[in-house]
């Protein structure tokens, strides 16, 4: 079965890209555009593995495609979420008509060009010359002057020689055949395309038909991916302008029959009546006698409320029981929670690490280009100190104590935190063991106070970091006591 025209169009375009723009990245980008319909450069970056490509490079790759009309650009006036100024954003898509026509045009021109080369060689040029008297002849005039060694010169009798140029171009007519053979697949596809209708896929069409790019499980950066909204008012104006200039063939008129009209009016009427009926309904006390109702209401109340307090009490008891449970189970659950928290922290560190490695690799690979875009990528990195589990657990305490808190690193070493806000991140632990900020570090800080009152109060006030020495075998003996102390702070 021959493929549908639209499929043939896609095959043709993909073949054209592979033939005339054979870079792997270009091919991939074009396939992505065919799959998703409309893409902004920002949408294309995450299609590649992280840090393998920069937006600038994508634009550079798309420019030749744009010049070949294989890819078209549409703009939308959009506003970034949280910003006030609107921006013209460029979206790439494929206009099938433009792309196919451009290919057809080039095929015709290419065939003409090759044919011309052949014709020139074949024409009235004097391809034969005499090496002695330098007379020149064209092929027709010497055909009858044959000597045993070849054609001879009319003037001096010397054997003629064929010009180098003519020898070179002798193969031109085989070239035409070669070209037609090689373009065979193109011509086949074009025949299919011409046999049916292919939608133009202009920008508005393509936008309506576009397929969303799947959310990638990206590294930290994607969480901050800005959202863009279209500026609706301006768009409407544009549309109105377009409608005014649109050609008659594109105008559709929807005609509703009289019957449909009647039905709609009837339905509206019914709806109105129902609304009026609902509004005018008589109150309950008017329709039913209030004398009988009181007693029934009381009865209902008695039936309804009397068992409630008991049930409530029972529930409360159950609630109280729940957290107590058995000590072992609670312990198990606490351990599980601790672990989960730890794993979360670990995962974050791992992502950070991976990101940094990839970044380094990318820089190494691209170091001969000067990339200004890279700075943007750095901004995406979140200072990880902000989201530590510690902050979620004891937010108020954390704020006061972070500067003096010493971190417990995986291998059991204590490490002092930097004060320069930005550098307080998980980045300092390059090893696989993530830095773990234990909530117990707050008690640690407090313990300093006991041992060396003057210094630590100073710490709290000025927020100056000084080596907070805490012994590793920190005594967990008085957990509850310590917590009490905290509430005072």
């Amino acid at each position, binding site marked *: 079965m021959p493929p549908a025209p639209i499929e043939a169009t896609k095959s043709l375009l993909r073949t054209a890209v592979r033939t005339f723009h054979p870079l792997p990245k270009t091919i991939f980008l074009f396939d992505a555009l065919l799959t998703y319909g409309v893409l902004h450069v920002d949408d294309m970056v995450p299609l590649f*593995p992280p840090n393998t490509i920069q937006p600038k490079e994508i634009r550079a790759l798309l420019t030749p495609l744009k010049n070949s009309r294989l890819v078209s650009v549409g703009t939308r006036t959009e506003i970034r979420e949280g910003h006030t100024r609107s921006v013209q954003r460029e979206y790439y898509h494929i206009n099938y008509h433009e792309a196919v*026509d451009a290919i*057809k045009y*080039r095929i015709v021109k290419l065939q003409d060009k*090759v044919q011309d080369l052949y014709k020139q060689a074949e024409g009235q040029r004097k391809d034969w010359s005499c090496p002695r008297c330098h007379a020149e002849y064209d092929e027709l005039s010497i055909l009858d002057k044959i000597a045993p060694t070849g054609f001879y010169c009319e003037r001096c009798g010397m054997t003629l020689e064929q010009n180098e140029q003519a020898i070179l171009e002798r193969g031109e007519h085989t070239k035409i055949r070669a070209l037609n053979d090689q373009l065979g*697949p193109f011509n086949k596809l074009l025949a299919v395309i011409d046999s049916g209708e292919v939608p133009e896929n202009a920008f508005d069409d393509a936008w309506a038909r576009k397929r969303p790019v799947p959310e990638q499980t990206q590294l930290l950066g994607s969480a901050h991916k800005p959202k863009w909204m279209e500026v609706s008012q301006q768009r409407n104006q544009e549309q109105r302008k377009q409608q005014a200039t649109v050609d008659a063939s594109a105008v559709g008129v929807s005609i509703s029959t009289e019957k449909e009209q009647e039905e709609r009016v009837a339905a509206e009427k019914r709806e109105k009546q129902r609304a009026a009926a609902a509004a005018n309904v008589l109150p309950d006390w008017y329709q039913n006698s209030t004398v009988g109702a009181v007693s029934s209401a009381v009865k209902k109340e008695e039936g309804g409320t009397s068992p409630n307090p008991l049930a409530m009490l029972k529930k409360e008891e159950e609630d109280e029981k729940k957290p107590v449970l058995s000590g072992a189970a609670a312990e198990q659950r606490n*351990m599980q929670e*601790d672990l989960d928290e730890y794993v979360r922290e670990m995962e974050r560190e791992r992502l950070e690490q991976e990101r940094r490695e990839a970044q380094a690799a990318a820089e190494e690979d691209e170091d001969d280009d000067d990339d200004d875009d890279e700075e943007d990528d750095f901004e995406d990195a979140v200072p990880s100190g902000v989201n530590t589990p510690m902050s979620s657990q004891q937010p108020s305490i954390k704020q006061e104590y972070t500067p003096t808190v010493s971190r417990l690193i*995986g291998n*059991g070493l204590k490490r002092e935190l930097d004060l320069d806000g930005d550098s307080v991140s998980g980045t300092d632990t390059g090893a696989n063991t993530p830095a773990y900020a234990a909530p117990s570090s707050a008690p640690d800080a407090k313990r300093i106070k006991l041992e060396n009152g003057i210094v630590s109060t100073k710490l709290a006030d000025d927020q100056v970091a000084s080596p907070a020495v805490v012994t590793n075998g920190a005594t967990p003996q008085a957990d509850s006591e310590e917590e009490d102390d905290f509430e005072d702070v």
Partner: protein
Amino acid sequence: MSTERTQSITKARAKSVQAKERIKDKFPAVLKWDDVLNYCFSAIERHKDVLFYYTQLVKKDSEVTYNEKDNTLVYKPPYPIRTPEQLIEFFQANTDVQSIEVAKLKKGWPDCDAEIDKLEKEHKITVMRNKKDGSPRVIFADDPTLHINLDEEFVNHWQSIQLPSKDDIIRFLIASRRTPAGQVAANTAVVKQKKQARKNRQSTKQTNKHMHGIFKDYSGIRPKGK
């Protein structure tokens, strides 16, 4: 969280990393849980809490598959691909465009370089390479049916052809008797309209309706103007 507990977790974490390394080394072999445990822990290290955390960490690890039924562990590479066929299938099974990082692919299929080169030559995949040593970096799907052999000379000619404006192209194509892409629909539409117009041509009032079906119908070849 108490310091003691933190220490247990830290220790368990170190042990689980050790276990993962072991499992990764042995891939694609399937390892017994106890074997891995014995490899990582000496008898005196087996504290109850540490073991608990270790179990949780290893079982939940995204790079390790734990089989509950026979209590075994096996490494789980980022892509479940170990042969060229599986690679092609992976691309075909996805309706979204896919890019595969070779570094990740190698975790499960360390000696994939030769196969990648082969598939690239067959036009089944395209390969983005490192600038320095030409080693593959990212691979994408491709389709051998979409490749034609066009001589470089022709390609160069093609590139040198300048494209005029959109309307000029359409005009040129019509002049050289080819159909511009958008014109197919228009042409067929015109033809249809003409046919319809001819069908409903009944200018005079018919008086002999009762004789329909008796006479032959010559209305189709009626001379024009009557």
